[in-house]
């Protein structure tokens, strides 16, 4: 079983549209995993049934036991996140502000402050509209994605892939270069970079590739909307050569991306034109690269 992770650095490059398309092309050989948990949307395209769910705990926050609290106000004074409120002589933790640093609990003379692990959402193992397996998560309001949650989604998908004898775990990675992305990359066999020829697209590609290089993972790249700016597309191609990133494909700007999305379809479902052909070839290329 091989793990393929799709990342982009910048948002809006078409990462999830492509990941969902490849998941569909891979069919029952693939388990899809949505690790872009902050803004999970692959479920809109693959329409999983939210079949099996479990609560997910990540991160810690402070809670004040009001029966024990002596209203000394030390916690209020040390909190750097303005997360302690004082209303009618009663100190409370503003949950949305609390970063879980635990400073308040440390200074509390009455030990009235508990550090509590947070239920931040649910993890799902689902069956998609095509009857394939998908692992995804839904965060509670105000909760954030974390390396821990990404690891949990990935490890669940990998375990299922082993049990059901699947060839690939296909991961829709998180945006940016932070902790969730590091966690997305950890343990991966191949990275697919999806970029676009804009200044920020290219900049973020370079930034995220620096991270990939750290992990020593093989990478391939798709330039989406390449005809928006031929000059930057050329620069990206040169960069790929220099960095030995495999060239997978160039896709023209195509409103089929949006059209497909509004119908809750993947591109390969929606489009019967050249775009679909390129994506089929791309998926073949990716599979060959992963094998070697």
């Amino acid at each position, binding site marked *: 079983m091989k793990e393929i992770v799709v990342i982009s650095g910048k948002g809006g490059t078409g990462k999830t549209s492509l990941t969902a398309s490849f998941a569909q092309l891979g069919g029952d050989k693939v388990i899809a995993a949505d690790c872009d948990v902050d803004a999970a949307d692959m479920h809109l395209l693959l329409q999983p049934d939210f079949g099996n769910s479990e609560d997910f705990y990540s*991160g810690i926050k402070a809670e004040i036991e009001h029966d024990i609290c002596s209203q000394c106000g030390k916690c209020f004074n040390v909190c750097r996140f303005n997360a302690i409120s004082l209303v009618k002589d009663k100190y409370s933790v503003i949950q949305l502000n609390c970063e879980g640093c635990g400073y308040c609990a440390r200074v509390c003379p009455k030990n009235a402050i508990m550090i509590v692990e947070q239920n931040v959402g649910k993890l799902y193992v689902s069956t998609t509209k095509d009857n394939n397996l998908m692992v995804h998560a839904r965060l509670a309001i105000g909760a954030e994605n974390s390396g821990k949650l990404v*690891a949990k989604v990935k490890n669940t998908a990998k375990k299922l892939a082993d049990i059901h004898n699947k060839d690939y775990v296909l991961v829709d990675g998180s945006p940016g270069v932070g902790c969730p992305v*590091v966690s997305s990359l950890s343990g991966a066999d191949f990275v697919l970079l999806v970029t676009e020829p804009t200044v920020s697209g290219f900049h973020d590609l370079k930034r995220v590739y620096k991270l990939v290089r750290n992990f020593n993972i093989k990478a391939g790249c798709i330039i989406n909307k390449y005809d928006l700016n031929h000059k930057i597309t050329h620069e990206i191609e040169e960069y790929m050569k220099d960095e030995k990133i495999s060239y997978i494909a160039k896709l023209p700007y195509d409103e089929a991306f949006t059209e497909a999305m509004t119908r809750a379809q993947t591109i390969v479902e929606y489009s019967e034109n050249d775009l679909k052909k390129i994506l089929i070839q791309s998926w073949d290329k990716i599979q060959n690269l992963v094998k070697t």
Partner: protein
Amino acid sequence: MRIAFTAKGVDWDSMIDERFGRTQYILMFDEENEEFEVVDNSSVGEVAHGAGPQTAKKLFDLSPDVIITGNGPGGNANAVLQQKNIKIFVGAGNMTIKQAYDAYKNNTLTFM
């Protein structure tokens, strides 16, 4: 040589844990007296953020000559380990500890 493996179990036949930061165990093998030391690392798996640097800190204190893992460590963890000149080898993701050790001996792992 003292060699540290990121591992999913506690003996030669256990699989390498391909994740660096959230590895379940760190196995320390001392080539001199052929002894294993097992360090349970599962508590790091429970932290929301910054697993890599925490595992790196543990390894910094354990101070092996060599680390063998899957494809980490990331940037921050690496910055910690570089302070101590620990040699890091990757690409042991789908191997058992024994296989990874043999691969290291045969120079077939990738030196970071």
